[in-house]
């Protein structure tokens, strides 16, 4: 079955309902980005040391990653079904002990530094592997993101691709009200990055934008997304950063994504 954002959304809703956990809106926001990555952009199997690396820097959307690993054939259904249970490797935030997860994350601002190190390692080792790092927009509040951005540009890490999930909201409010991010694309450009503005829900456009990136300065896709994408009553609603679904909401959400 081809990996699609809608396919990932189905798993995200199933699993978050079964586990009764939140972060649903954040996971729905990045479903199409992960579908693009795991639907053909990332090269190499999880056990190949020369595989492309992926860092889910916005670790709280790990459920979208688990769904993508599942649809890519790296995570069997019975393991996916352990999400957020006792004795699972599939916690709310991703852990590198799980095959297919290169780096553990959960604390924002650490993914891009690790990703820059991984990209530098690939260059030093003469490898063509690339490193993709998915950040949340509010994660750009963290100073360490910009430390890594400066380093990557200085060393022209063209094998590093950051994707910023620009959904305009963070845990307690809209980014424009908490810490304004604009002009976000200009900020990345000023830091020396090759900036691409993309519709974060157009899987084909995302895959196309990422396909040829491997040289020059580091690349960033500013992916314009809608928080909670696909479920109208979650879209752009702050409360769906944390809230789990009740039975009625769950059924309504499934109808909306066509399940």
């Amino acid at each position, binding site marked *: 079955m081809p990996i699609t954002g809608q396919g990932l959304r189905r798993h995200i809703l199933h699993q978050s309902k079964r586990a009764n956990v939140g972060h649903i809106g954040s996971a729905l926001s990045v479903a199409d980005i992960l579908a693009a990555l795991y639907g053909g952009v990332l090269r190499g199997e999880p056990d190949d*040391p020369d595989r492309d*690396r992926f860092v889910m820097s916005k670790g709280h959307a790990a459920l979208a990653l688990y769904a993508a690993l599942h649809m890519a054939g790296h995570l069997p259904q019975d393991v996916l079904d352990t999400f957020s249970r006792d004795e699972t490797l599939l916690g709310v935030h991703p852990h*590198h002990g799980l095959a297919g997860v*290169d*780096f*553990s*994350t*959960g*604390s924002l*601002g*650490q993914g*891009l*530094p*690790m*990703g*820059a*190190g*991984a*990209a*530098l*390692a*690939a260059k*030093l*080792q003469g490898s063509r592997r690339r*490193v993709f790092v998915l950040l949340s927009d509010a994660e750009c509040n963290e*100073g*360490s993101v910009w*430390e*890594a951005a*400066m*380093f990557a540009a*200085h060393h022209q890490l063209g094998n590093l691709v950051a994707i910023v999930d620009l959904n305009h909201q963070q845990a307690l409010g809209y980014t424009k009200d908490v810490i304004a991010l604009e002009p976000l694309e200009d900020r990345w450009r000023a830091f020396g990055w090759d900036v691409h503005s993309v519709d974060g829900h157009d899987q084909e456009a995302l895959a196309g934008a990422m396909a040829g990136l491997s040289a020059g300065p580091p690349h960033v896709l500013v992916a314009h997304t809608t928080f909670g994408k696909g479920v109208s009553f979650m879209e752009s609603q702050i409360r769906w950063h944390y809230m789990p679904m009740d039975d009625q909401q769950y059924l309504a959400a499934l109808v909306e994504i066509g399940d």
Partner: protein
Amino acid sequence: MLLTADLGFMALEPFSDAFPGRFFNVGVAEQNMVGLATGLAEAGLVPFIYSIAPFATLRPYEFIRDGPLLHNLPVRVVGVGGGMEYGQNGLSHYALEDVAVMRAQPRMTVVAPADHMQARQAVLATAGVPGPIYFRLGKDDAVVVPGLDGAFELGRIQCIRDGADAAIMAMGPIAVEALGAAELLAARGFDCAVAVVAGLNPPPSDDLAMLLSGRRLAVTVEVHYANGGLGSLVAEVVAERGMGVRLLRQCVRTMPDHLVGSQRYMERMFGLSAEQLAEAMAQELAAL
């Protein structure tokens, strides 16, 4: 590989000249340095990351925990000038809690060599450690602890002086003062053993218990706060093993946030010179 956060003038050049392809000045960005090292180590490299001790440990502490520690990767964190070696530079440049926070992490190997010869041996002896290591280095390579001869073994202590009356345990270059105190006490008729404790984690518990067995006075000497350093470690061993030895912890008891001066001046402020240590111990020994 060697990464520095823009420090190490007149110290790192021999490496950067010899191995320019393996040397990176990452700029004044310690958090990023730890993240970079994590990414490099995941790919099979062994990065040493260098800064002044507080900048290497306290600033990027969470990055160290979530990166090299959580992923169990061989990143070597090198903090130079532990204690108050940066004298007149003041508190911002002191590391008086670095051993405490580092040894709080079960997976972190913590090494505080007493001189450059022991540091060299410690780096060689720990080359095969799969997880991260924190090296707390002194910055003065003129310091040599007599009798130590560069000995180091992880999980062990190094005894450099025998004696029946008290056992003195020292962490870092202040071991020179501890040894000096033992010599001053010898002239006053007290015979004290001296041990260098350079491997703090994993704790050298068996060696410490053996050293303290049957003794009435144990003394720890360190340029570190009372909480979490060598004195704490020895207290843990003494308490957990139910040993009946009196423990005197010679360390830094208050925040040095007011007057500053040279390293020696600062250490004297906290009673850590050989003369002051000998005097404090003589009082304890006389009272036993």
